[in-house]
C-alpha cells in the first residue's frame, strides 16, 4: 500500500540525509552504496553514513523470529534518530521499516521490553525513503544526469511495488537516462521467486519461478537487468550465471550514477 512520503519541513539544503545501506548491500553489494553516494553528491546533496546501523530485521521478521527483531529495531531508531531523511537502495528493506517496524515495536511493548519503542519508531520509520522516492518526491528530479548506453530491462520488485508503492518512479528515472534503451519485460509484475529464506526453504519452487523470469529477461533482448533490490537481483543473477548468460544484473543506483560506458 502506498504511503505518504515524508518530506522534511526545512529547506532541501539544510536537511541531513543518512544512507541506510542495508546489511545485505553492505556485505554483498557495496558498489550499490558507493553509487548512491556518488549520485547524490553529483546532485549536490551530501549524505552521511551513520556507522551504528546494522540491519532492519527483515530476515528474522519474515522467518518467524520476530522477537529477535526487537534489538535490531531499537538500534535502528537510535542510529538514525538525528536525520531528516534516511535514504536506502532497497524497496524491500524500506517496506520492512515503514510497514513492519511498528509491529515489532508493539511486540516489544507486549513483551514488556521497551514500552517507548513505538513512539520512537513512529518518528523515525516514516523518514525512510527508497532511493527513487527520495529522488522523485523530495529532490523532485527525474533526469539525474546519467549516461548509460545499454539496453536495459527493469524488474519491479514485489516489495517496492506492492508493499511500498514506488509506482512508476524507477521507470521515469530510467527513461531519462541518456543513451539507455528501455525494453519491455513481459509479465514484469510476476515475483522472481527470491522471497528471502523461501529461496532455500522452497528452493525448487523458487528456482521454477526464477527460471520463468530468466526466460522473460532473455527474451526481452536486454543486456542489463535492473531493479531496486539487490536481493532479487542476486537470485536472478545466480540463475543467469549458471546458464552462462551474458546478461548482467545491476542495481538502479548504479545506472543512475553512471556517466559513461563503464559499469
Amino acid at each position, binding site marked *: 500500500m502506498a504511503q505518504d512520503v515524508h518530506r522534511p519541513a526545512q529547506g532541501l539544503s539544510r536537511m541531513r540525509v543518512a544512507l541506510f545501506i542495508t546489511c545485505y548491500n553492505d*556485505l554483498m553489494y557495496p558498489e550499490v552504496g558507493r553509487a548512491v553516494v556518488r549520485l547524490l553528491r553529483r546532485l549536490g546533496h551530501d549524505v552521511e553514513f551513520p*556507522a551504528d546501523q*546494522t540491519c532492519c530485521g527483515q530476515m528474522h521478521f*519474515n522467518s518467524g523470529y*520476530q522477537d*529477535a527483531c526487537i534489538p535490531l529495531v531499537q538500534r535502528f531508531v537510535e542510529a538514525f534518530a538525528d536525520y531528516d531523511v534516511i535514504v536506502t537502495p532497497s524497496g524491500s528493506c524500506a517496506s520492512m521499516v515503514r510497514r513492519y517496524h511498528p509491529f515489532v515495536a508493539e511486540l516489544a511493548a507486549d513483551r514488556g521490553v521497551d514500552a517507548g519503542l513505538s513512539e520512537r519508531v513512529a518518528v523515525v520509520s516514516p523518514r525512510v525513503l527508497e532511493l527513487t522516492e527520495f529522488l522523485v518526491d523530495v529532490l523532485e528530479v527525474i533526469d539525474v544526469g546519467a549516461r548509460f548506453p545499454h539496453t536495459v530491462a527493469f524488474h519491479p520488485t514485489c516489495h517496492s511495488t506492492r508493499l511500498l508503492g514506488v509506482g512508476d518512479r524507477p521507470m521515469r528515472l530510467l527513461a531519462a537516462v541518456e543513451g539507455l534503451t528501455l525494453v519491455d519485460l513481459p509479465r514484469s509484475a510476476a515475483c522472481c521467486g527470491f522471497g528471502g529464506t523461501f529461496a532455500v526453504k522452497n528452493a525448487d519452487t523458487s528456482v521454477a519461478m526464477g527460471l520463468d523470469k530468466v526466460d522473460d529477461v532473455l527474451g526481452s533482448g536486454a543486456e542489463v537487468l535492473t531493479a531496486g533490490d539487490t536481493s532479487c537481483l542476486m537470485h536472478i543473477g545466480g540463475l543467469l550465471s549458471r546458464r552462462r548468460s551474458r546478461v548482467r544484473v545491476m542495481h538502479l543506483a548504479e545506472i543512475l550514477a553512471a556517466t559513461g560506458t563503464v559499469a
Partner: protein
Amino acid sequence: MTGPAPRPPHEPTFAGTPPFPVAARAALADAQLRANLGRATATIRAKRAAVVAERADWEALRLAGAAIKDEVLRDLPSLLEELEQAVTAAGGTVHWARDAAEANAIVADVALSHGAREVVKVKSMATQEIELNEALRQVGIDVWETDLAEMIVQLGHDLPSHILVPAIHRNRTEIRDIFLDEMGRVGRPAPDGLTDEPGDLAEAARLHLREKFLRARVAVSGANFAVAQTGTVVVVESEGNGRMCLTLPDVLITVMGIEKLVPTWRDLEVFLQSLPRSATAERMNPYTSMWTGVTPGDGPQAFHLILLDNGRTDVLSDTVGRQALRCIRCSACLNVCPVYERTGGRAYGSVYPGPIGAILTPQLRGIAKHPVDKQTASLPFASSLCGACVDVCPVRIDIPEVLVHLRGQVVRQSEATHRLPTAEAVVMRAAAWTLQTPRRLGLAERAAGLGGGIFGRKGMLRRLPGPGPVAGWFAKRDLKVPARESFRAWWRRTGGGEAD
C-alpha cells in the same frame, strides 16, 4: 472420527501429504500439470482483471466487504442466534456442530432418518473440509458430487486442486478418458465414441447426472452466505446443477461454516457483486439460489442447517489470524499466486490450497493452541511473500501479514518442543547476535569477504564447501560472493569516499 470399522477408502484424502517443499518438488516435475495450470491461471487472471477494471467503485466494494465481514466476526454469537431463530421460524431445523465428527454424524442421522441410501451434493468446501463423503460412505450412504468439476474429481478417484475449479489440473482429454472409464461403474455410462469437445463432455455429464437428480431424495449443500436477519441461505454457482439439488429432493441438508453469515439482506449486495467478478470473472454468476426455511408445496419439505465450528472459534481468538475468516472462497488469490501457479493445489495437502489455504488450514488445524505436524507447519512458509494475493482479495485479507504471524507461531512451537535448537534456529540466533552491533557485523563481513575471495571464481560460487542449511540454493543457481571490502569498511577507509 468414530464410526464403523473403516473399509478401504473410496474417497482419497489429503492425509499423508508430505511437507510443502517435498510435495511441490513432485508437482513441479509434472510437465502436464504445469502446462494445464499455467494456461488456466493466466486465462482467469486476465479475465478477472478486465471485469474488475469495469468497476470504478471496486475499492469501495472491497472495503465494504471487509467491513461487513469484520462486523460479522465481532458480533458472531448474537448473529448466529438471530439466524437460528429466523431459520427455525421459517420451518427449518438448526444444528450446532463443534467439529467434523459431530457435523458428519448429524448429516448421517438426518439422511438415514429419511431412509436415504444416497445423497446428491452441491459443490461445497465445508463438506470437503469435514470429509463428509467418506463419513457417509462408511454408514452405507452413496454420495454423488453434481458440480461438473467435483464430479470429474470424484469419478477420477482424485483430489481437488483448486477451491473453485477443483479439476483445474485436468485437461479435456484426461476428462474424456475419466468419463469413458468411470461413468458406467456408478450410473449411466458415457456414450461410445465420446470426443473431448467441451460440448460433448458437458452433454455426457448432463445425462449421467440427470439420472441421479431425479432419483435422489436427499441433497447436501454448503452455503456461500446466510442472512441472519431473515434466515435466508444463499448458494451461488455457474452450472445450475446446484439448483437441481436445492429444489428437486424432499430433504435438504446444508453444512455451513459459522463465519458465512451476513447481518442483513442488504449486505448481500456487496458480495453478489464482488464474488463472481473475483471468482469466475463474471459480472454476475448464472445461478443464485436463495431459500428461507421450507415453503409448502415448493422445493424440499425438510431443511436442516448445520452450523459448523471445526476450529473457527479458535481462529477468531487470534487477533491477527482472524482476518482469514473474512474469506468468501473466491479463489482470486490462488489464481494470481506464483507459487500456486507452479505447484498446483494438491501440494498444499488441504482442501484449501494456495495463499488462503496457507493461512486458513494451519489455523483450522489448531496451530495457535498446540504444536502441529510438519506438513501443516510447512504451509505458512509456502510463499515468497510477493503480496499479489493482497491486491486481488475482495475482502482485503492481508495474507502475507498472517503468513508471517503464523511463521512466528511455528518457530515458537519448535523452540518449545525441541530440547535442542534446530539448525535453522542456531543460524538465526547467530545472525541476530552478529547484527546486534556494527562491530560484530564488520568482523563477520571481513571474514565473509575473505572466504568469498578464496572459494569464488569470477565473483561467483557454484557451490558451498560442505553441506549446510543453504545447500538448496546451488542446484540451479550460482551465488555472488561477498564483497572483499564491505561498504562500511570502504566508508571508513576512504572517509566517506573523499579519499577514494
